[in-house]
Each structure stands twice: as structure tokens, then as C-alpha cells.
């Protein structure tokens, strides 16, 4: 099993090196993406079969590469199998999408060699079983995605986005390195040895904080999220779909593997820290998203929201595991894992949609789009499914994982610790707010860019994307619906994962009639996706047939009600910033110090009046700007040392000698 996985990773790496040559040939991108599609699907199938049929087996392998005396260890247990499925499902969909979308790439040489390497890096992170290969794959993943972020290097802000991204990625890796340093102090770098060595409680506490810094910065939790909305949109669409949908999940895997698997019994305050970071990430992420005009930045910010939901689920799982209520911990953990799977699906779908729009119109700014539903009907349908799914609305999968997380919150009054008693309701409130904002944000995204009338001639002349992109999107949309309707299947597939990680599983789902999912007990609460969907469809069809039999079915077209103004041009429609104006006014003025500056020209001048919306990213001003200023100040002060005279350098040597003599002699 693991041999197949390692061979396909090797195939991906071979494809990466071949990519350099392939990028020069005209059909090169088709071959490369086709190869990636095959490799990722084999990986996905092997992982799925391992997860479903023999989760208890944990095949492991050791290669002589890596640390000389340790070698590189790989292991495929239930957790890795699940995340392999997520990674490779996203990878296969992205490769399928890229088959069609790849043609738009103007400089393939900068993307083709790095794409398979990126996929290989992510797979190796999930397979690694020792600290060194884990970290090598982790940073290799960031390096290759950095290369793709700066593939459009002509625009300066892409290069800046790449710079901020790699800086934050290295910060995260060094945090992980310090965490592994602590873990390895007792037992060396192999995960099995660390697991057996049971690090002390204080040490584990520090490791959790470092993991939160390391994995949190890669996943995009709020204080460390600054790079994500810069880097993800800059990459080509299929890559940003992978980065948002899949790479953040690999970061979640890193956190779960270390905190749930390697560390011994959790302490209650760990969950408090995770919840304190998860809750605000959810709400702030989506509030940022509401304020943006660029589609891909909206999607990048909404990734932060979903990551916040996942980490809230993990925080609750930690809290329950610390108190020994591991059957509730199983519920919270499965909710988080299900949201990992769901988010990978619909976020990739939405990024592919954005890619299709970008390919068709060459425009990412919503204010220049509109009316695309008439010109790109199939893409519009797929993106509609994505938007409904991500807004956590019933027939689709987003609602199921959010519903399970809410059930876990409802069970938490049993937690004795006072800190959690105060934090969990607040986090519950934040999650509820985030769900509502998500709906608002995606109504705006879909309404402004796909509905209404085209605001620019580029949007008016858009055309439908190619077959491959459409199939990729529709496949993902179908998966979203299936996961929404039959959640029981997915929860049972996750049972072995939660068994390993929190020691218990949710009640067995498949047995119940009509595939209802029951989080804890029949009496408590249950939800049946399939029946709700059938029930709604039934009601809809009965209404439609009743109306078409009895009421009239005549229909004619007429101009829309224009309140007396002749031929209103598209500009009078609501634009992205005007749509979010009410919410900006209610929430934004506090959180973003949002200000609307109207520049009225002096009476005589023909210059048009301008309305500018000024948003401040408080976290950037409070956390990142001061650090940059401090570094700048320090470098200016130190820079003088470059321009001293020889005599002054000699005094430096002289003083050093005197100091050393004093130290040594006295």
C-alpha cells in the first residue's frame, strides 16, 4: 500500500523534472497535467481503499535518504490515509481543471516544473513519519508554491506577495523546527520514538504553542494570516485552488499529527488557546472577505474563516479529550475532519470558477463583471452550487459539518473548567455570526459577478470555458451534493481516524434507517440530509405541477421597472462596495476603521466627483508594520558600521581584545 503511494510520489517528482523540458513543447502542459491527474488519482484510490478496508493496518517504509543515521521514515495510518484522500482529490480536480486552463498560461516554464513537485511535497508531508522528512516536505511545499506565486513576476505586487509569503512560511517552519527540537530532546527524530517517549506536560504545552504558530501561520489563522490573501490570488487559478483548498488542510494535518497523536494527554488550557484563535479567525476572515472587490481575494479570506471553524472543532475536541469525555471529543473531531473534506471540495470548486471567469474575461475585479450567467451558464451553475455549499445551506455539505460543530458546542456545558465555560459560548456566537456573514459574502460574490447586467464590455463578450474545466467543476459540485445528502457514509469513513486520534468514535451511522446522522444519541438530535433534500424536491415539484396544471403558464418579456428613468446604464446596478456598504457601516467602522471619503471637485472644474472607501487592516498596522519599522530602524543604526575608517575598525578589534582579556583573566 505504502509502496504504491511512494512510487506515485516518485512519479510526480519525475514529472516535475520533466516539466522543465515539457514547458517548451506546445502539448507539454497537456502531457504534464495528464500525468499529474493519473498519479493523484492512483494515490487517492490507494488511500481511500486503505481508509475504508484496512484502517487498522499501518504499513511503514524507510528509505536511506534524509538524516544519515536515521533514514526517511514513511507511515500510512488512518489519519494520513484520510488526508491523502483530501490532498489527492483536490490535486486530481486541479490537474483536470488545468488540462483546459493551462493554455492561458503565458510563461509555462515557470509553472509546469513546480506543479507536480508541489503535489509531491504535500503528499510526502502527509506520509512522513520522522521530523526531518516532515519538515523537508513541509518547506519544499512552500518553496514550490512560492515559485508559482511569482510565476507572473511582471506585476510588482506578485513579487511582494511572494516575498511576504515565503517570509511567513519560513517563520512557520522555524517554529515547527523548535517544536521538533523540544520533542526530539527526549527521543530522537522518529515519530514512533517521540510517541513512545511521552514528553512532559510543560514541554507539551510549549510544543502546542509552537505548533499553533507554525501550522497556524501556514493554515492562515488570524494573527498570522496576512500573507494568505496576498499569495493565494497571485498564483494561477488551479494552483490557488490547491493552495487554499488543500495546502491549508496539510497544515491542519501537521497540527493534528503533532498535538493529537504525538503528545500525551492534553491539558485543558490548550483548547482555550486554540479556541481563542479559531473563533476570531472565523469571524474576522469572512468580514475581511466581505470588504474585498477581487474575487480571488474574497475566496482567500473565506479560507481563513473555514480554517477558523476547523480549528474551533479541534479546540473543542481537545477540551473534551482533556476531560476524558472522548465520545464527545469524537464528535467534535469528526466535525472538524468533515469540514476539512468539505472545504477542500467547495473551495477548489470556487477557485476553479474564479479561474474560469478570469480565463473568459481576463478580469478578477467584481466591479467589472456582471451578467455572466447568460454567457457562461454551466460555469454559473457550478459556482452557484459552490456558493450555496460554502454558505452552509442545507442540501449541501457545508451545512452538515457546521451542524455537527454546533452540536459539539451544545454539549460543552459539561466541561468543568471556568475558562472554557466563558469562551465556548462566545466562540459559538462568533461561529453563528461567521455563518451568516459567509452567506452574505457569497450572495455578493455570485450576485455581483454572475447576475445583473455586464458592467464592462469584457464581461459582455465572455464565453464558456473548455470541457476539462467544466468537468472538474461539475465533478466537485456533485461531490458537494453527495456529501451533503449522505453524510453518514463520510462520517463512518472517518471513524478509524477519530479512533486513533481521540480514542473513540461517533455512533455508527450507516445502520440507522434512511441514513440519518446522529451525533450522540437518538433522543438528542439528528439530521437526515437525504430526506430533507427529497422532501424539498417533492414540495417543489408538487407546487410546480399544481401551478402548471391549474394556473396559467403564459409568459412574456418586458423591460424591468425603471421608476421612470430612460435606459439606465449598467453602472446604476449595485457594485461590490455598495453591496457591502451596510455591513461595512455596521461592523467595518469598528474593525477596519472604514471611512468613506467623498472627493467633491471645486464648482468650476469638470473633474468627476469620486467616492473612495478607505479600509485599514488593523492587524497589519498593529503587528506587521511595527516589526518592519523596528527592523528598518535597527538596520539604519547598524548600517553606519559599514562606513567607518580603518582606525575605527582597529579600535573595535582593540576593545574586543581588552574585553576578552578581562573576561579571561579576571
Amino acid at each position: 500500500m505504502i509502496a504504491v503511494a511512494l512510487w506515485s510520489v516518485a512519479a510526480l517528482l519525475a514529472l516535475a523534472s520533466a516539466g522543465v523540458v515539457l514547458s517548451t513543447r506546445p502539448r507539454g502542459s497537456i502531457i504534464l497535467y495528464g500525468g499529474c491527474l493519473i498519479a493523484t488519482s492512483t494515490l487517492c484510490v490507494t488511500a481511500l481503499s486503505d481508509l475504508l478496508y484496512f484502517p487498522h493496518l499501518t504499513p511503514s517504509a524507510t528509505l536511506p535518504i534524509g538524516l544519515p543515521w536515521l533514514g526517511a521514515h514513511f507511515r500510512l495510518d488512518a489519519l494520513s490515509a484520510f488526508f491523502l484522500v483530501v490532498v489527492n482529490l483536490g490535486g486530481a480536480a486541479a490537474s483536470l481543471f488545468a488540462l483546459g486552463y493551462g493554455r492561458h498560461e503565458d510563461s509555462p516554464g515557470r509553472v509546469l516544473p513546480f506543479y507536480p513537485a508541489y503535489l509531491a511535497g504535500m503528499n510526502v508531508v502527509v506520509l512522513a513519519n520522522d521530523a526531518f522528512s516532515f519538515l523537508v516536505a513541509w518547506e519544499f511545499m512552500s518553496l514550490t508554491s512560492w515559485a508559482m506565486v511569482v510565476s507572473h513576476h511582471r506585476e510588482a505586487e506578485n513579487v511582494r506577495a511572494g516575498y511576504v509569503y515565503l517570509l511567513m512560511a519560513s517563520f512557520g517552519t522555524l517554529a515547527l523546527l523548535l517544536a521538533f527540537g523540544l520533542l526530539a530532546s527526549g527521543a530522537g527524530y522518529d515519530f514512533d520514538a517521540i510517541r513512545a517517549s511521552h514528553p512532559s506536560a510543560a514541554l507539551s504545552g510549549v510544543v502546542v504553542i509552537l505548533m499553533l504558530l507554525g501550522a497556524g501561520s501556514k493554515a492562515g489563522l488570524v494573527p498570522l494570516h496576512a500573507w494568505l490573501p496576498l499569495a493565494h490570488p497571485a498564483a494561477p487559478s488551479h494552483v490557488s485552488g490547491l493552495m487554499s483548498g488543500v495546502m491549508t488542510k496539510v497544515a491542519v494535518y501537521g497540527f493534528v499529527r503533532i498535538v493529537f497523536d504525538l503528545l500525551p494527554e492534553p491539558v485543558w488550557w490548550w483548547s482555550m488557546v486554540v479556541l481563542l484563535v479559531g473563533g476570531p479567525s472565523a469571524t474576522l476572515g469572512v468580514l475581511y472577505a466581505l470588504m474585498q472587490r477581487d474575487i480571488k481575494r474574497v475566496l482567500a479570506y473565506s479560507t481563513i474563516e473555514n480554517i477558523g471553524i476547523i480549528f474551533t472543532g479541534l479546540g473543542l475536541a481537545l477540551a473534551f479529550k482533556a476531560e476524558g469525555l472522548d465520545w464527545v471529543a469524537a464528535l467534535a473531531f469528526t466535525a472538524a475532519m468533515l469540514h476539512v473534506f468539505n472545504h477542500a471540495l467547495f473551495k477548489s470548486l470556487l477557485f476553479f470558477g474564479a479561474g474560469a471567469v478570469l480565463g473568459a474575461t481576463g478580469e478578477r475585479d467584481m466591479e467589472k463583471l456582471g451578467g455572466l450567467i447568460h454567457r457562461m451558464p454551466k460555469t454559473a451553475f457550478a459556482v452557484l452550487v459552490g456558493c450555496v455549499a460554502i454558505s452552509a445551506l442545507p442540501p449541501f455539505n457545508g451545512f452538515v459539518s457546521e451542524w455537527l460543530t454546533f452540536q459539539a458546542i451544545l454539549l460543552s456545558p459539561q466541561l468543568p473548567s471556568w475558562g472554557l465555560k466563558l469562551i465556548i459560548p462566545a466562540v459559538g456566537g462568533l461561529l453563528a455570526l461567521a455563518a451568516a456573514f459567509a452567506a452574505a459574502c457569497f450572495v455578493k460574490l455570485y450576485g455581483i459577478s454572475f447576475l445583473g447586467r455586464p458592467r464592462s464590455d469584457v464581461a459582455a463578450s465572455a464565453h464558456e470555458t473548455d470541457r476539462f474545466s467544466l468537468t472538474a467543476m461539475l465533478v466537485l459540485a456533485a461531490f458537494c451534493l453527495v456529501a451533503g445528502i449522505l453524510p453518514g457514509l463520510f462520517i463512518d469513513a472517518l471513524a478509524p481516524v477519530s479512533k486513533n486520534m481521540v480514542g473513540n468514535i461517533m455512533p455508527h451511522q450507516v445502520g440507522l434507517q434512511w441514513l440519518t446522522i446522529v451525533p450522540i444519541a437518538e433522543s438528542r438530535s439528528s439530521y437526515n440530509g437525504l430526506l430533507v433534500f427529497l422532501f424539498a424536491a417533492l414540495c417543489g415539484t408538487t407546487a410546480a405541477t399544481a401551478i402548471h396544471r391549474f394556473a396559467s403558464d403564459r409568459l412574456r418579456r418586458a423591460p424591468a421597472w425603471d421608476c421612470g428613468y430612460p435606459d439606465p446604464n449598467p453602472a446604476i446596478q449595485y457594485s461590490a462596495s455598495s453591496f457591502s456598504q451596510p455591513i461595512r457601516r455596521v461592523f467595518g467602522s469598528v474593525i477596519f476603521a472604514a471611512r468613506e471619503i467623498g472627493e467633491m471637485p471645486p464648482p468650476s472644474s469638470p473633474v468627476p466627483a469620486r467616492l473612495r472607501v478607505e479600509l485599514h487592516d488593523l492587524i497589519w498596522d498593529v503587528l506587521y508594520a511595527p516589526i518592519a519599522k523596528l527592523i528598518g530602524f535597527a538596520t539604519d543604526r547598524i548600517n553606519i558600521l559599514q562606513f567607518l575608517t580603518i582606525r575605527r575598525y582597529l579600535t573595535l578589534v582593540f576593545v574586543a581584545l581588552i574585553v576578552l582579556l578581562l573576561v579571561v583573566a579576571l
Partner: protein
Amino acid sequence: MSIDALSAILLIPALSAAVLAILPGYRLTAKLNVVAALATFLTSLSLFVVEPASGQYLLMDDLNKVFIVLTTFVSLTTSVFSASYIQHEIEIGRLAPAFLRFYHAMYQTLMFAMNLALVANNIGLMWVAVEVATLTTVLMVGIYRTHEALEAAWKYFILGSVGIALALFGTILVYMAARPVVGEGLDGMVWTVLVKHAAQFDPALLNVAFAFLLLGYGTKVGLAPLHAWLPDAHAEGPTPISAVLSGLLLNVALYALLRFKMMLAVNSAAIAPGPLMVTMGLISVIFAALMLYRRRDIKRMFAYSSIEHMGIIVFAFGMGGPLANFAGLLHMTMHSLTKSAIFFAVGHIAQVKGTQKIADIGGLTVTNPALGWGLMLGVIAIVGLPPLGIFMSEFLVVSSTFARAPWLTVILVLGIIIALGGLWLRIGAVMFGEPKGKTAPAEASYVPMFTHLGLVLMAGIYLPPVLVTGFQNVAKLLG
């Protein structure tokens, strides 16, 4: 003294230096220079096969075997690079053939001096070798005869000589400490004898001696307060010399320092040299990291990056312990390979673009893709990103020392992050964006650069066992 491999390594450069001094023509001497370097490299390879005995004056053990091979290999690749580089410089007219009269002779004397320093068993002889190496590099740095080159050479000479003088004083103090135990005469200076008896030496005198040696050889290693000569020497000297300086000379000085640290490690009473080296290492890392931001000359920027990496290595040896020492040795090898590869790339880029100012170089990956991506790979390595060797050594240093001294490692990590920030900022401007400056394609010798980077990439994934066992038992010796 029979002509075994050990003495051959010294004889070939010495003889070729003499021969090259006589021959006038540039093209011929360049080829001869490469042949001589190749011969030396092959003899050094034979060291792995037959282990020559260490005598009174020459010494062969695990530590210097690897370093000799590294030195001769890098000097071979640098000689190949300098052949095409200097040829190009003559065509451009920046260097008159008159200046180059003794260039290759000095190159070979430098090789001779470095090999002598590595194999010398007599600490006095080692000092002389390092002195000769300094003087030859001083002359080579001043070869361009521009104002800045002269000023850099003069600064290098003054600071280098003061440093070397202090090192000599330290050597004398070591002899003084050894005399009561070992007796007078020659074996008071022989390193192998000294290490055997070091336990009975007077610890206080050893401490003062180590203080002087740390300052003396520390200047040659380029640690923070004594670093002043390094950036200007690199920036103003010809690039092959910067590559040799950064790649080899810093290692030779650090090797000498390690020899004395071994001696102190045996004598338990002496204050552990660790704290001294750790403090100087950390100061250099933080100082060099902060200096990277305001640099406008690309070679001077990489010189500061060398100071930073030397700081990391000295920190690793200062912390001690088999894992940290192994990491330090690995880092030394990886750094010299990567830094010389970077200087090869930078040399050609400066020639193509006609300037070393970072502001005037842009869009390299568009105009000269091979050079651009080569330098990119070098910078990815030097900054410590994974698939390449330096990540492994930084991984070992940080993870092995964090548990023992959390706050020191946090400062080191801070230094690494700041350095990454500074270097990556400039590289982004140089590599991407609209192409700036002349865009002529470079007919450069890519072979040396890509062999080095290939070796570093290979080391990042798989380390040959012979290298590993060699480093491991040296790490135990280093204490």
C-alpha cells in the same frame, strides 16, 4: 621525507607557483593553473585510499582529510571559473595583462599556503601558512588598482596582520603552557603531542592563549567585531578571489581555531571555550543579518551572508555535543560549496550587466535564465530552504541546541529569519520584474556552478557514509 600523498599536496602547488611566475602569457598560465589544481585534487582524493602517516611537521586525521579534499576541489572549480572570468575581464579592459603578471602564480601560492595550513602538525607552521595565505589574498584583492580596491586591500592588510599577530602571540602562549609538561624544543609545538598532554597544561594560561587565538584566527574567520575587512575584500576583489576567500580561507581559519578548541576540550579545568564562541557566533549572526538590508552592492551582500553563516557555524561548535559539532562540520562544507557557486553566478552576472549595483540589475530570470535560476538555487540553498544541504545542518543545529539553551537558539533563529528577509528582498528585485541593464546573453562557464549546486542538492537528500563517519568521530573529538 618520502614523497607520499601528503607532501605531494604541498609540492604540486609550490612547484606550479614557481613555474607560473616565470611564464608570461595569460592563456597558457590559465590552462596550467587548471592542470595544477586538478593534479592536487587527484592526489588529495588518493588520501581516502591510502592513509599516509603523520610526521613531525605534517599531520593527517579525519578532520583535515575532508577539508583538504574540499579545498582542492573548490580551488579546481574556481580555477576553471577564473580562466573564463579573467579572460572576459581582459576583453572588457577592466584588467590590463600587466596587472595579471603574477595572478596565477599567486593563485597557486595561495593553494599551497592553504594546504600547508590544513596539514601542518606544527602550530607555528600552521600560523605561517595562514599568514602567507593572507598576504597573497591581500595582493590579489588589490589587483584592480581602482581606489576602492586599494582601500579594501589596505584595510584587509592592516586588520589581517593585526589579527595574525595576536594569533602568533596566542601560539607562543600555548608553547609556554606546553613547555613545563612536554619539555623544550620542537615537540612543544607539535599538535599531536600537545593534544595528548593537554590535560596537564596550566588551565589559566591556556585560557589566555585561547582568548588571543580566538581573536587572531577569529579575524580571519570574519566574526562580528573583527569582520570589517571581509565585505570590502569580497566586493572589490576579483570574483574568483571572493569565491576562494568565502569558500576556503574562512574555513581554513576556522579549522585552525578547531584544532585549538580540541586541545582545550581535553583540558577540563580550562574554562569551556563554548560560551566565548557562542557569544561571538550570535553577535555575528544578528549583526550580519541586520546589515543585509541596506546593501546596494550584490557581492558585498553575499559577503555579509558569509559572516552570518560563519556565525552559525561558530555557534554550533560553541554549543558542543556530537550532534551540534556534526552539524557545524556539515554546515562548513555546505556553506563553502554554496557560497562559491553563488560567487561564480554573481561574477558572470556582474560581467553581463556591467555593474554590481543591485538597483541596476533586474529581470535576470528573463534575460539570462541559466544564470538567473542558478543564482536563485544558490540563494535558496544559502537561506536554508529544504531540498538543499544547509537546511539539514540548520535543522540539526537548532533542534539539538533548543532543548539545552532555549533562549540562545531563539536568538539564532531570529537571526536566520532576519537574514532570510534581507536576502530575499534583494533577490526578488534582481530576479524578477522588468529586465534592467544590458541584456546580452552571457557565454559563461556554468559547469563549476552547477556541479557545486548539484553536490549541495545531493547532500541535502543523501550523505555518503564515508563523509558521515568521518564527521561523526571528529564531532566526538571536538567535545
